[in-house]
C-alpha cells in the first residue's frame, strides 16, 4: 500500500465538479478504488450502469471522468464492459495497443442484485477480465428510494413503506455474495468506505486477477437512509461494527474475515441514526429489532463457521 502522501499526489480518475448529493459516498468509494489501482502498471476503463453515480458524473456537455468511461443502460454494465474487454483482446491481437488495460464495471444494488443480475452472471461465466464494483445503497436511490432485493428487513422505502399495518420491508436482504460465490470466481469481497485501506487492498487484489472479480461495497445514502450529510462514513463504520456489513473475502471459495469487531455492537447502534428505521423504535415494534438482530447474528455465525472450516472450492 502506497503512503497517503503519494496517494494524495496521484492523478484522479474522478474529478471534482460532479453533482452527487453532499455526503454521498459514491465518489468516496470510486476515488478509493482508483487510488488503489496501480496506474503506473495499467490503465483503467470503466462502464457504469444507469443510477445516481452515472447521472451525477456524466451529464452532457460535462464529464467528471478522467479515465475512459461508458454508460449505456441500467441492467447491462457487465455486458457493456464485456464488449469493451472483447475489443481490447482484438486490439492486443492486432497490435493496436501494447498497453495493459484493466476493466471496471460499476453499478448500485438495483443494477446488480436485481435488473442487472443476468448480465453480470453471464459476463462472469464467460470469464471476461473485469472488476465489478457494486455500491450497495440498499434501494433504488436514483428514482427516490424504492425497495430493492438489497433493502434490509424492516427498512422503510417508498415501495415498502412503514404503515399502520405493515412496518417496512418484510423480507430479508438478498445475500448477493452467496449468489456470486456460485460462479466460483477467483476473488470476491465485501468492503466499506469507512475501512478504506481494506477497501483499497481488495480493489488492488481484484484488479490483479486475470478474470472476473466482484466487490460489494456499502454505500450509505444520506437522502434515502435519512441521516445528516456528514455522517455517511460513521454509518458505514457502524454497519461494520454491528456485523450488519461484515468485511470479508472469498478467495477461491475460502472465506477470510478481514475485521472482527472487538465489541460487536448491537444492531440498534446502526439502526438508530437512520430515519428509514425510525419506526422500529416505536413501542410495540421491539420484536422487529430482535428479528433484525437475529438475522445479522445468524449470518455472522455462518460466516465465522465458514472461515473456521477453511474449505475452498
Amino acid at each position, binding site marked *: 500500500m502506497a503512503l497517503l502522501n503519494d496517494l494524495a499526489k496521484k492523478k484522479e480518475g474522478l474529478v471534482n465538479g460532479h453533482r452527487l448529493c453532499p455526503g454521498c459516498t459514491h465518489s468516496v468509494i470510486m476515488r478509493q478504488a482508483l487510488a488503489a489501482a496501480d496506474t503506473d502498471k495499467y*490503465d*483503467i*476503463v470503466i*462502464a457504469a450502469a444507469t443510477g445516481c453515480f*452515472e*447521472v451525477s458524473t*456524466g*451529464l*452532457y*456537455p*460535462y*464529464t467528471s*471522468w*478522467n*479515465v*475512459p*468511461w*461508458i*454508460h*449505456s*443502460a441500467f*441492467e*447491462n454494465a*457487465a*455486458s*457493456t*464492459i*464485456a*464488449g*469493451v*474487454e*472483447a*475489443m*481490447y*483482446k*482484438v*486490439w492486443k*491481437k*492486432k497490435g*493496436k*495497443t501494447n*498497453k495493459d*488495460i484493466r476493466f471496471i464495471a460499476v453499478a448500485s444494488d438495483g443494477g446488480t442484485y436485481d435488473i442487472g443480475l*443476468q*448480465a453480470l*452472471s*453471464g*459476463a462472469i*461465466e*464467460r470469464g471476461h477480465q473485469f472488476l465489478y464494483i457494486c455500491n450497495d445503497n440498499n434501494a433504488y436511490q436514483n428514482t427516490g428510494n424504492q425497495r430493492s432485493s438489497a433493502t434490509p428487513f424492516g427498512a422503510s422505502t417508498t415501495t415498502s413503506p412503514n404503515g399502520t399495518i405493515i412496518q417496512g420491508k418484510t423480507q430479508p436482504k438478498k445475500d448477493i455474495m452467496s449468489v456470486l460465490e456460485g460462479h466460483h470466481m477467483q476473488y470476491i469481497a465485501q468492503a466499506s468506505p469507512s475501512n478504506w485501506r481494506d477497501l483499497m487492498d481488495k480493489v488492488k487484489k481484484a484488479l490483479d486477477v486475470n478474470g472476473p472479480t466482484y466487490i460489494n461495497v456499502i454505500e450509505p445514502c444520506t437522502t434515502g437512509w435519512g441521516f445528516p450529510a456528514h455522517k455517511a462514513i460513521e454509518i458505514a463504520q457502524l454497519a461494520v461494527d454491528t456485523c450488519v456489513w461484515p468485511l470479508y473475502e472469498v478467495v477461491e471459495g475460502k472465506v477470510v474475515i478481514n475485521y472482527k469487531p472487538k465489541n460487536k455492537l448491537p444492531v440498534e447502534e446502526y439502526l438508530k441514526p437512520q430515519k428509514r428505521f425510525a419506526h422500529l423504535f416505536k413501542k410495540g415494534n421491539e420484536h422487529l429489532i430482535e428479528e433484525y438482530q437475529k438475522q445479522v447474528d445468524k449470518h455472522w455465525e455462518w460466516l465465522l463457521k465458514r472461515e473456521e472450516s477453511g474449505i475452498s472450492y
Partner: protein
Amino acid sequence: MGKKVALTGNEAAAHAIRQINPDVVAAFPITPSTPIPQNIAQYIADGKMDTELVTVESEHSAMSACIGAAAGGGRVMTATSANGYALMWEMLYIASGARLPIVMAVAARALSGPLNIHGDHSDIMGGRDSGWIELVAENSQEAYDNLIQAVKIAENKDVMTPALGAFDGFNISHSIEIWEMEDDDKVREFVGEYEPLFPLLKTEEPVTHGAWAPPDWYFEHRMSQLKGLLNAKDVVVNVGKEFGKAFGREYGIYEAYKMDDADYVIVAMGSVCGTTKDVVDSLRDNGVKAGLLKLRLFRPFPYKELADVLSGAKAIAVLDRVSPAGAQGGPLFNEIRSALYDANNRPPVINYSYGLGGRDTQPVHINSVYDTLKKIVETGKVEKQFDCLNLRGAWG
C-alpha cells in the same frame, strides 16, 4: 473471381460476416437466425476468421456488448430475429443514439404471441423508429450483398449510424438458392479498414461515452442523429454503385420492376417480391400493364423518390408483412400513401397484410391483388382499403 454456390440465406449472411471479419461479434441464438452465430463459431474454430465472438446470455446483452465493443473501438456485427430483436429494443436506440455503426443481420420473424418462429416483418417494422438504417433483401444474394454494403454505409463519416440487413425468416434464411459468393480479399478490400472516431481503448485520450442529455441538449442530439440517418440515403446509392463496379451487381434504394409504363403496381419488400415478379411477367405476357416496386431501403424512408416512381400508376397495392395493429394500414402502406400526398397524381392506394407467421403467399394471391387493382381502375371505386391475403375466411 467469385463463385456460384447453393447455400441458404443464413449461410449467405454468415459468409458475408466471415469475409468482413469484424473485430467483435456478440450474439445469442434465436430461430431462424441461429445458424449465423453457429457458422461464425465454426469458422473461428477452423481458423477461417479471427473475430472475437462473445457468446452472451441474452440478446439484450448481445447488443450491450456490441455497444461496448464498438465504443471500445472497432468493427462490430451481430445477428438476431423476432423476440431477440425485441429484447434488444432498448439497446437499439442506445446504439443509434451513441452513433455506433454496428451492423446486424436480421432473419425477420413474427413476434409472439402466439409463439411463432416463422417469417414476417413484425420485428424490423416494430423497430423501424429505433434510428437504424434498414435494408431488406429479396433473396440470399441480396442478403449477402446487403450486409457487405451495410458495413460501408453505416461507417460512412456522414452517417455513423447502425444498420441492419433483413431477410425473411425461413423463406430466405432456410431456403437453398444459388448465389454468387465473392472472393474473400475482394470483400475485405471493398469494406476496407474502419477507423473508430473516439475509441475508449485509446486510454491516453480518455473519452466519456453515453453521458445523459437533459432537456437543453437531448433535442439537439436527436436531430443531429437524424441528420446522420438521412445522410444514409445518398450513401446507400453511392455504395450500391461502388458495389456494382466491384462485383457487377448494382443496387439502389429500390428496384422498379417493369414500372416504366405500369398501370397496376404492387409495392412490397422481401421474398414476396420474387413471387410478384413471376406474376408480373405472366400478366405482361397477357398484355396487362403490371409492375412491382420493390423497396430495398426502408429507413431512412426515401419518400420523394418513391412518390416520383409511383405517381404514374393508376392504382397501387402495398403489401405489408405485419398486422396494421390498429393503424389505418401497415407501416409501408402509411408511408407510401403519405409520400403520394404531395404528388401531382395521386393514384388510389390499397393495403394488404400477408404472410404473417410464415403464411404462404402464392402467385394466386398476388394475382388476386392485381385483379383488384384492375377493378378499382375500371370502376373508380375502392371497396376495401385494407384486406388480407390467404387468411382463413374474409376480412372485415
